[in-house]
Structure formats: C-alpha cells, structure tokens
C-alpha cells in the first residue's frame, strides 16, 4: 500500500512538461490512425438540424461568421456543414461577419461549398456581404436597415445591383439566422439585439468555451439548439451524412479526454494523500 501511495505522490509531483508530452502523444496517434468511434447527435444539435430542415424552400437565411483562424478546427466544420445543408435544400444564403478575420473564413467556406461542391451562382443563390466594424452596433444596423450598413458587398458590388438583395431591407426579411461564433461579438449579441426583438429564429455553432454562456438561451427557447464545439460539428456532419474534419478529430478528442480525466484523478489522489500526511506530522 505504501509503495502505491508513494507512486501516486511521485506522479503528483511530476514536471508538467511530461503531461504536455503525454497529451501530445495521445492526440497525435489517433489522428494518424483513426479508430472510428461512433458519433450520436445530441438533442441540441438535432434541434439545429430540424430547424433548418423545416425551413420552406428558397428561404432567405442569414449566416454570420464570427471566428478567426485560431478557432478554425471548431467553427469551420460547423460553417461548412451548415452551408452544405442550406444549399442542399436550395435556400438563399446571405453571409455577414462581425469579426474581420471571419471574412476570410467565410470566403474559404463559400469557395469550397457554394462554388466547388454545389456550383451556386453568386448574386442569385448567395451573397457575401462581409465584415463591418462596430460589434453590436452592426447587429442593430442589420436589424433596422441592412442597406444603410451594407451599400456594397465584399467584392465592392453595389447591393442595389445584386438580384438576391431585392426585397432584403432589414433583419426581419430573413427566415432564419445561423451564427458561427467564437466570442464577442457573436451569438449573444445576435440573440440580444436581433433575434429576441424581432422573433426571427436563431441557431448557433459555438466554441466549447462558449457553450455554458449560450446554453441558458437554448434552454429558455431564445435559441433553437446549438452546435457545441468540435463534437457538435461532428454530430452535424453525421446528421447531413457528410463526414469532415470534425469527425476525423473526434477520436483524438475522446482519448485525450480520458487521459485528462485520469490525470485529474491522479492529481486529486496525490493532493489528498499529501494532505493526510501533513496532518499526521
């Protein structure tokens, strides 16, 4: 027993760089050799899927991109899956960004999905309005008069000359909003300044860190579901039956979690044994 407690204490005192190394290894190996662990959609993901699935054909959907390359592994698969779902169901997509870097992320996703996979026509099937600085003021601007805020699209074409922008004047002209968000400004601002005041349904894909912040809006019905981090993106990929980068990362994610749980148990065990020893002496 003493040998065991000594071992636990020794593990508790290990240099944290060894822990980093172990984590790097357990993340690295499943990426190289995937196991293919099963992915089942959670309720919150299914609600997002159903909300989009139940939209009438040719609905006008606003997709707002609020993330940068730093959270690309979590947000980008969501954006791609949502665009695939929207274009598959022949909806009209309008893309805005509250983050400057979001413009490049959106451009990348649109190029892949709208242009290469679905061959959609710019200006008729989708419009890329791009980034405007101003955080929640931009959301308020889109709600009151989108044309005042966006006189030109991202390619500097006047919105009056874009066929799809006909009859689009304010936020309530959209049937649905999906925001792919990594922080401020993002999902919460869209709920507070756009969805709640107008009643336009909103769903969101958020980074894992944000899940706790936005979950109250989901529980209260202010949001229709949420895609929670990389697992949420992987679940959505499973629902639309098109696997992508989120699915391939889930093996590494699951194994890394198990290892972290093990470290937490060992760390706590070492802490309590040490405390017991210090009380004894």
């Amino acid at each position, binding site marked *: 027993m003493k040998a065991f407690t000594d071992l636990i204490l020794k593990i508790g005192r290990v240099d944290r760089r060894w822990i*980093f190394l172990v984590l790097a290894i357990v993340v690295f190996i499943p990426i190289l050799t995937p196991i293919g662990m099963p992915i089942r959609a959670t309720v919150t993901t299914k609600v997002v899927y159903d909300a989009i699935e139940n939209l009438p054909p040719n609905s006008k959907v606003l997709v707002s991109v609020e993330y940068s390359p730093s959270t690309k592994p979590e947000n980008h698969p969501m954006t791609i899956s949502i665009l695939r779902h929207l274009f598959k169901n022949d909806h009209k997509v309008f893309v805005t960004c509250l983050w400057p870097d979001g413009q490049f992320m959106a451009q990348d996703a649109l190029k892949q999905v709208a242009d290469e996979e679905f061959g959609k026509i710019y200006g008729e099937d989708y419009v890329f309005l791009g980034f405007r600085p101003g955080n929640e003021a931009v959301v308020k601007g889109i709600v009151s008069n989108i044309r005042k805020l966006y006189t030109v699209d991202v390619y500097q074409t006047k919105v009056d000359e874009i066929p799809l922008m006909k009859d689009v004047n304010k936020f309530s002209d959209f049937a649905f909003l999906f925001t792919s968000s990594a922080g401020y400004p993002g999902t919460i601002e869209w709920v507070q300044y756009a969805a709640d005041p107008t009643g336009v349904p909103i769903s969101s894909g958020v980074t894992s860190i944000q899940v*706790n912040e936005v979950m109250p809006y989901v529980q209260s019905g202010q949001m229709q579901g949420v895609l929670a981090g990389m697992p949420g993106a992987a679940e959505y990929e499973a629902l639309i039956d098109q696997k992508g980068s989120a699915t391939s*990362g889930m093996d590494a994610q699951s194994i890394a979690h198990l290892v972290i749980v093990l470290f937490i148990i060992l760390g706590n065990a070492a802490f309590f044994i040490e405390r017991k020893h210090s009380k004894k002496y």
Partner: protein
Amino acid sequence: MSMTAILGAWIAVFLTLGIFSYLYKDNPFYKIAEHLFVGISAGYWTSIFFWTQIQPNLFGRLWPSSEFSTDSFWYTIYNGLGYLSSSVFPEGGIDKGHDMHLIYLLPMALGIMMLLSLIPKINWFARWGIAYTVGMAAGLRAYGYLNSNVIGQIKGTAASFADPNLPFFSLTSPSIFNSIVILVGTITGLLYFYFSKEHKGLLGKVSKVGIYFLMISFGASFGFAVMGRISLLIGRFVDLIKYSGSEYLNATVWVLVIMIIILGYDAFKGSGKGTTVSEDAV
C-alpha cells in the same frame, strides 16, 4: 505545389512550433512568434477597419461620387486629399452607394479627438470621444441585457411549469423536474450573491446549495474549456501532419529537428535564461 504555398507552410510550421516551444521554456522562437502575432494582428485589424468602415462609410458619405462637382469648394478639398492618396480618395468622389451626409463630420471629429490622446498637451480631447462611446455602448447594452438576459431568462425559467404536456422526468429533454432544478439553481445561486445579510441559518443553508450549483457550473465550464483547447490542438496537429509531407519539402520534420537541436544545444551549454513553464506556475 507553388513556392508561395511551400513558403507559407514553412512559416506556419515555424510559428506553430515556436509557440508550442513555450511549453518547454521561454525561448527566442516563442518570442519571435509572439511578437509577429501581435504586430501583424494590429496591422491587419487597422487595415481592415480602415477599408471596411472609414474609407467607404465615413469618407464615402462625406464625398460621394453621386454629388461630385468640380466647382464645389467641398470637392476641391477632396481633390487636394486625392493628391495624398488616390486609392483612398479616387478621382470623381467615392462610389460606395451613399448620398452626402455632412452630419458624419461629427463622428470624424470625435475620431480625430480620440487620436489626439497621443499628444500629451491636448490629450483631454480624447475624453469627448470616449464619453460618446461609453454612453452609446451603455445605452445599447442596457436594453439588450434587460430584454434577453433578465426578462427572457425569467420567462424561460418559469414557462415550463405551465405546460401540461411536459413529462415529470426526462434526462435529455424539457421536463417538470428539470424546470424545478433550474428554478432552485437560479434562486439559490442568486441568494449566494446576496450580501446584505450574514449567511447564517436558513440563508446560510440555501446559499450553500447555491455554491454547489455554481461549482457544477464551473466544472462544466472547465470541461468545455479543456474540450476547446484539445480541439485547437487537434487542428494544429492536423496541419503539422499535412505540412510534413514531401510536397511541402517535409517542413514539419525539418523545423522540428532544427528547433530541438538549437534548444538542446542551448540547454547543454547552460546559457538558457528562459523561464521554464513549471517555474512560471510557482
């Protein structure tokens, strides 16, 4: 594969491994990556803000092409500015679909006042701009929070009790039991932050229940934070694996080996003055 793509891959690999190298200890590779990130981010944001807001939405409203006239004094000033930069002030006015709105001189003046904070003698001008921003943001946020976070959340917490179709218990979907848990959590959590009375007796017991709810919430936040960080690590590893291929001239392998040799040599010579991560935490 084009040389630009290969060069981009090498830079990406160097910067990723440079940042990761901090896990070993503070070192010049990390410093280079950190400083480049800060500098490039600042430059990128400035450029994007200027070309998406100041040029089209401010200058575009002050000197729109739709009202351009060579006889106008206002556009004579514009032409003068055009000599400074023809890309910002193109010939014939700015064509971004705006009409002329001279009221936008006010936000321009406030913006210039903000920049005057760089000059110590007249930096008090900046307070006017800041005052406007603070007032506007406070007003805007007060409404949003009151409507969505207070009224919306109270409605969401209470509404479920009135629904006769709800089951009493369900783990994954709304139920009366879940509504009771939310209600108890909300009330006890709020009472924990009630400091006008000492937390003794009934209030003490109730607020202790609130602490448990808060601890569960912090635990969930921590779990999600871990999940998020692992996701980002996976993203970087996927890129590193991709860039280790021969089409990128084995960028990951070479950069990793060179970094390990240099950091190893530095550690061997004992000249590394960087702080280890473990020491940072002490």
